[in-house]
């Protein structure tokens, strides 16, 4: 066989370079826009004043807009890559971190903390939300383990059961506590970014970044895992252990960000699908790209939430209203490529 000719015949795919540039620059451009647009107009002229004077501009810029933008980026990045990793690892384009019980676990944890310690004690709400999100994921993983093995289907089913269970507990808390606490529990559950301060960023960023970097590090193994259990094992992967690590990395990051933002829906499902639509399914490209798409999506959604009405609409409302129809559209476009 003339293998020299054959090798020359098949060329590497170069079309993806322009996507690379777009993916790197789009969050940066959106960040710039994000920082300038808002109820209180900041302009480029005042950039010097902004950074070095003691004006109100500076306060708004540094202590209101900037932490909020940073949290939007971290949230989007973490949701994007976690969703993409889980979908690929579990060979199921319909999974997201929320499916494993993370969101309802976190909501329950936050509500419990507000019920016991009062709704103004933010320091206890976050750890409690993270703790119960991880409890929920662990229960999901434990339930889905059947004869010592995970199956993606039983994992998703267990996730639904655990979510339902924690949603039930949450309703119970809401019924039992005083009305004003119920109100703040509901407010917590609707995801928002307008309350974000540097303290929130400091609390949520380290674990989120740990999760993002960990998943990036695993991206080749994630690809091989998506070949199916037996094949991955015959290619030298310790399937059970590595899949567990990937699920935990995705869960820890996700739990950490939603512990300060509340439940902002759809980003972890829609961001991976937009990315898939743009760059294809190969995790080597999909995972880094989903970081960029996730953060761009969040910046855009939060810009809309800040500017579209005379008062702030929680960003979770916007992501759901954009996300659901967009998901339907992408699903119809990609119909023959999913199952």
């Amino acid at each position: 066989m003339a293998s020299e000719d054959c090798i020359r015949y098949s060329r590497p795919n170069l079309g993806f370079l322009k996507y690379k540039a777009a993916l790197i620059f789009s969050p940066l451009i959106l960040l710039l826009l994000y920082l300038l647009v808002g109820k209180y107009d900041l302009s480029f002229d005042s950039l010097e004043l902004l950074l070095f004077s003691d004006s109100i501009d500076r306060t708004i810029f540094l202590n209101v807009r900037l932490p909020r933008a940073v949290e939007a980026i971290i949230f989007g990045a973490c949701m994007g890559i976690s969703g993409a990793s889980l979908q690929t690892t579990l060979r199921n384009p319909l999974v997201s971190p929320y499916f494993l019980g993370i969101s309802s676990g976190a909501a329950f944890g936050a509500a419990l903390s507000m019920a016991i310690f009062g709704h103004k004690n933010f320091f206890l709400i976050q750890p409690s939300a993270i703790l119960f999100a991880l409890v929920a994921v662990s229960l999901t993983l434990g339930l889905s383990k059947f004869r010592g093995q995970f199956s993606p289907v039983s994992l998703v089913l267990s996730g639904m059961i655990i979510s339902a269970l924690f949603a039930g507990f949450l309703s119970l808390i809401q019924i039992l506590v005083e009305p004003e606490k119920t109100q703040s529990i509901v407010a917590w559950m609707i995801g928002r970014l307008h309350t974000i301060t540097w303290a929130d960023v400091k609390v949520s960023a380290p674990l989120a970044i740990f999760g993002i970097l960990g998943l990036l590090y695993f991206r080749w193994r994630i690809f091989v895992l998506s070949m199916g259990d037996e094949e991955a094992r015959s290619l030298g992967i310790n399937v059970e252990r590595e899949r567990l690590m990937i699920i935990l990395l995705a869960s820890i990051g996700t739990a950490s960000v939603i512990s300060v933002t509340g439940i902002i829906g759809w980003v972890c499902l829609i961001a991976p699908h937009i990315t898939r639509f743009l760059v294809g399914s190969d995790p080597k490209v999909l995972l880094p790209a989903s970081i960029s798409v996730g953060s761009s999506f969040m910046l855009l959604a939060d810009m809309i939430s800040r500017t579209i009405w005379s008062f702030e609409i929680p960003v979770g409302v916007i992501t759901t209203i954009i996300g659901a129809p967009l998901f339907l559209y992408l699903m119809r476009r990609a119909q023959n490529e999913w199952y």
Partner: protein
Amino acid sequence: MSGIEAVDLCFSYGKMMIVRQVSFELEAGEILTILGANGCGKTTLLKCLNMLLKPEGRVMVDNLDLRTLSSRDLAMLMGYVPQIHSPGFPYRVLDVAVSGRTPRLGFSIPSKNDYDLAREALCRVGVGHLADKFYTQISGGELKLVLIARALVQEPKVLLLDEPTSNLDFKNRVLVLKILQEISKEGISVIMSEHDPNLASLFSDKVLLMMNKGEIVSYGPSKEVLTSENIMKVYGLDIEVFEKEGARYIFPNLSG
């Protein structure tokens, strides 16, 4: 010895014994074909050989006991081509082929050299022109060839193939078996399951004939195993055997 040796392999699902006391040895460079009726445990036996299932007894490759190896070390010794692969996401053929490098990569992503090896392997099995296509959009036979290329990229000592000729047309069957013969000449032991006794007799050095419930009817050099009595016993068919220029041809006798 260099090659693979299986000693007293047994495996059961619950109380049902699927593989019963299988022993064989195969030198480097030889081809062993596992023949037997549907459901007699060929696939199970193959999965016992590369420890996807946990059998009793032991399997040695180059005098290493496979039970003591990590999955990564095992993957450097053995390649596996499954009977059916259900594609999850639309990946490029080249990416699928290069995943055979995984045991040698660890956590890093494949280098240009790895991609070159994958292209070479694809060309070698005759699907180099598909390298940049999506593997969800190629035919079942082409997919099989891609999976064989992936196993070759693993640079294994032993290659296991579960019905490598299923889903292939007449020409591609012969093509695949010829490629496997070539590969074996480079010092790789090839073990495959097969349905056609004629192809088994043409292409293999040794044959393992299995009955229901994993019982071995006969094992040895293909000429000694593929007799009309043995084949009749396994398939319950009336058989005629012809010899021509040293090769043996097996046909069902329909007149009786």
